[in-house]
């Protein structure tokens, strides 16, 4: 039963859960449901565990509320009170909406982060299984190092949160759905509303003026979508429309933007015009704009293109406006929301900069940096002798030399190749035995690699052992030099962890490979690493003892 200290915020009777009648209680930190007539709660969820809530659509007969937990489970509550079901359900929903965000933030993010990391990295997952599930080290130690990275990012991101930009297609994304009976249904989310306000500050103004005094929010948006301001063909017929002013202001803004032009002297917007291909691949000039008799289609095309341009300009401006607002209040360049502030005074420097950029190339300029210091070698002949140690050449006297040369010349004078008597068969066969496998010259070559001798499951288990051992040893070695109390405790703990690892993981593996008669020494290196860690620990401990005494 609920503890006496819990504050009950809402009680809803006649709520069914799993076809049982009962009562729903919303407390300060949890939501609970108990069946009718019983004292206990059968279902209780902390707000921190709830990921989100869902409600059944308005038209349905059953009024239901579903709670989805982080673990994926869900509980559904059916509000069965005939008269007040909807009201109850909505009251519950509102309360939950207020309470859930409070408890949501911390725990859920960390857990999600951990799960995500485990799922993304199979090596990490294996390591987790090897170390934590088999209780060699505790889960906190495992996550201690890893999560520190993400928490740093988190704090950074809270400080300089990047502004989310506006999608240029936000209006198009609304995508009205037919309601069945000649009406249209627009789904507006808060993101879209925000985009509209940021892009069209005039609409925001109108909203501030009218809501909630004159119109409700729903009515405002209905008017918005109904008005021709929103639609394609803007016929300013002077209707009683709060948005007609917006349309006029947009026109003004567009005109001023056009007159302001682009600040880059290299770009000539007026030179851009439509050129179509004429006969013979020449270009045909577009019909001049002074021609009065424009077709109706051209007119509407013109209008829609103008609207597109205006829309894009507003979207870009909204993005820039935030940046400029924080950086410089009295910006010299004109603001970009359609109202121009003439900045003729400051054009020349900009033009100069642009011109210079266009005519100069940095990497073609001469390099007038300081000359670097040159290498000055005194005894460069040292490089030319190789890794051949100085050996005294055997001395041959000139008499020997002349003798040898004489002998050879004598021999070669009468050289005639005798290819049938190159060598005796005994010499040949002894050479062959030396070259056969097992012979004198073939020692050390025919070993099979360990790769081929050891079965693959043993290999993969060895790899897992190496990763796990590596992780533990990394924790161990990062404790040195031991400066703080925390590190001391950690060192002792890691030492015991290593011993436990050796006992629970390494020994069974060694026994297993012994049983399989594998003679290769697979775990020698692992043992060496663990021994090094043990000896370091012992040295540290003995030094600590001597320091204490």
């Amino acid at each position, binding site marked *: 039963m609920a503890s006496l200290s819990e504050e009950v915020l809402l009680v809803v009777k006649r709520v069914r859960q799993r076809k049982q009648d009962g009562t729903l209680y919303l407390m300060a930190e949890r939501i609970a449901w108990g069946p009718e007539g019983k004292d206990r709660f059968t279902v209780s969820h902390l707000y921190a565990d709830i990921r989100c809530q869902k409600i059944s659509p308005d038209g349905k007969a059953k009024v239901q509320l579903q709670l989805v937990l982080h673990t994926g489970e869900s509980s559904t509550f059916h509000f069965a009170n005939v008269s007040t079901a909807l009201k109850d359900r909505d009251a519950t929903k509102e309360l939950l909406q207020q309470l859930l965000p409070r408890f949501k933030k911390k725990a859920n993010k960390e857990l999600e982060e951990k799960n995500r990391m485990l799922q993304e990295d199979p090596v990490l997952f294996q390591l987790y299984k090897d170390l934590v599930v088999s209780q060699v080290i505790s889960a906190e130690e495992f996550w201690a190092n890893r999560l520190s990275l993400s928490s740093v990012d988190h704090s950074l991101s809270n400080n300089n949160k990047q502004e989310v930009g506006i999608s240029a297609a936000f209006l198009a994304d609304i995508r009205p759905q037919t309601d069945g009976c000649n009406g249209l249904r627009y789904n507006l989310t808060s993101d879209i509303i925000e985009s509209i306000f940021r892009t069209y500050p005039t609409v925001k103004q109108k909203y501030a003026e009218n809501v909630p005094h004159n119109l409700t929010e729903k009515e405002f948006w209905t008017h918005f979508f109904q008005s021709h301001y929103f639609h394609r063909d803007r016929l300013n017929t002077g209707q009683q429309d709060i948005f007609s002013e917006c349309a006029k202001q947009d026109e003004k803004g567009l005109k001023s933007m056009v007159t302001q032009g682009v600040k880059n002297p290299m770009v000539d917007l007026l030179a851009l015009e439509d050129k179509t291909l004429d006969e013979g691949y020449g270009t045909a000039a577009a019909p001049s704009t002074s021609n009065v008799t424009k077709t109706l289609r051209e007119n509407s095309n013109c209008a829609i293109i103008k609207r597109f341009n205006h829309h894009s300009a507003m979207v870009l401006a909204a993005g820039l406006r935030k940046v400029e607002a924080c950086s410089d209040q009295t910006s010299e360049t004109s603001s970009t929301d359609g109202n121009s502030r003439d900045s003729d005074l400051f054009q020349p420097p900009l033009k100069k900069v642009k011109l210079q950029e266009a005519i100069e190339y940095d990497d073609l300029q001469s390099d007038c940096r300081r000359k670097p210091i040159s*290498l*000055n*070698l*005194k*005894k*460069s002949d*040292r*490089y*030319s*002798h*190789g*890794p*051949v*140690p*100085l050996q005294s*050449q055997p001395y*041959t006297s000139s008499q*020997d*030399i002349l*003798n*040898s*040369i*004489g*002998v*050879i*010349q004598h*021999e*070669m*004078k009468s*050289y*005639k*190749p*005798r*290819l049938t*008597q*190159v*060598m*005796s068969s005994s*010499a*040949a066969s*002894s*050479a*062959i035995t*030396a*070259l056969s*496998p097992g012979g*004198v*010259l*073939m*020692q*050390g*070559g*025919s070993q099979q690699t360990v790769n081929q001798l050891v079965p693959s499951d043993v290999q993969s288990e060895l790899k897992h052992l190496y990763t796990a051992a590596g992780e533990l040893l990394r924790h161990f070695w990062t404790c040195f030099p031991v400066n703080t109390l925390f590190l001391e405790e950690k060192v002792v703990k890691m030492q015991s962890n290593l011993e436990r690892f050796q006992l629970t993981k390494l020994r069974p593996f060694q026994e297993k490979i012994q049983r399989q008669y594998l003679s290769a020494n697979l775990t020698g290196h692992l043992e060496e690493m663990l021994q090094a860690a043990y000896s370091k620990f012992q040295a540290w401990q003995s030094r600590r003892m001597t320091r204490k005494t």
Partner: protein
Amino acid sequence: MASEDEINILVIVIDVNPIWWGQQAQREPKFTLSKCLDAVMVLANSHLVMARTNKLAIIANLYQESHFLYPSKNWKSGDDIASSGDGKYELLSVANDLFAEEIRKLMDRKVNCTQTETLLAGSLSRALCYINRVSKEVEAGQDVKSRILVIKAAEDFTLQYMNFMNVVFAAQKKNVLIDACMLDIDSGLLQQACDITGGLYLKIPQKIALAQYLLWVFLPDGDQRSQLLLPPPVHVDYRAACFCHRNLIEIGYVCSVCLSIFCNFSPICTTCETAFKMPLPQMAKTKKKKVKTVN
């Protein structure tokens, strides 16, 4: 099965240092230069017979010069060649005759021996040039696989180290294998060369069976060697020699300016005369502090 489009070039570099061979003749009369040349000739013939498109070159490696024994400049096709009379493949008989003639002429010349070591780097570079020339002369679409077999008798000549290493790296770039057959002493340089280019290094225990070793180990070319069971590669000593004593060291000090290697620390590098600051040991500082507190 070697395709018709593949050309295998074998260049044999024989060490015919007369001094060594003369001493060898006095040491061991059973195996003299003639025997060695006979064995090489057998290998050369076998190589030419293996495929019609195989090419051969033999370079004799003397002190101060290297000389092409085959193909020789003096040979003009169409010459009146006395047929050997035993029905031998003409190419082989021509090759053998030329070979013998050239070596006779070479040995007959008066030599001026101021240096007694053999110039290996020179012969290897000539071999590479020959390979390069032949590779350029083949028709388009023909693959050229080449290797150099070095038969070495005398010791290494240490002054040619830089040139030798340059040749070896050039061979590696050109995918030319360098094999080595050592008759007498192990040579570290050739071990390195074989390791770098992927060739075989073998020191022969019995010189009289040279032909057998040549045919067994050095006749198959690079592709075929992977299918055969041949002597395993030797462990090459890649240790560097320190610049001061020329001892081979495993751990040493390297100057960060000129990259010269020393076995002991010295505050000034003797090659580039850069001064290095030695970090003061920490002990001196703490001792001073203690003295102060006592006072």
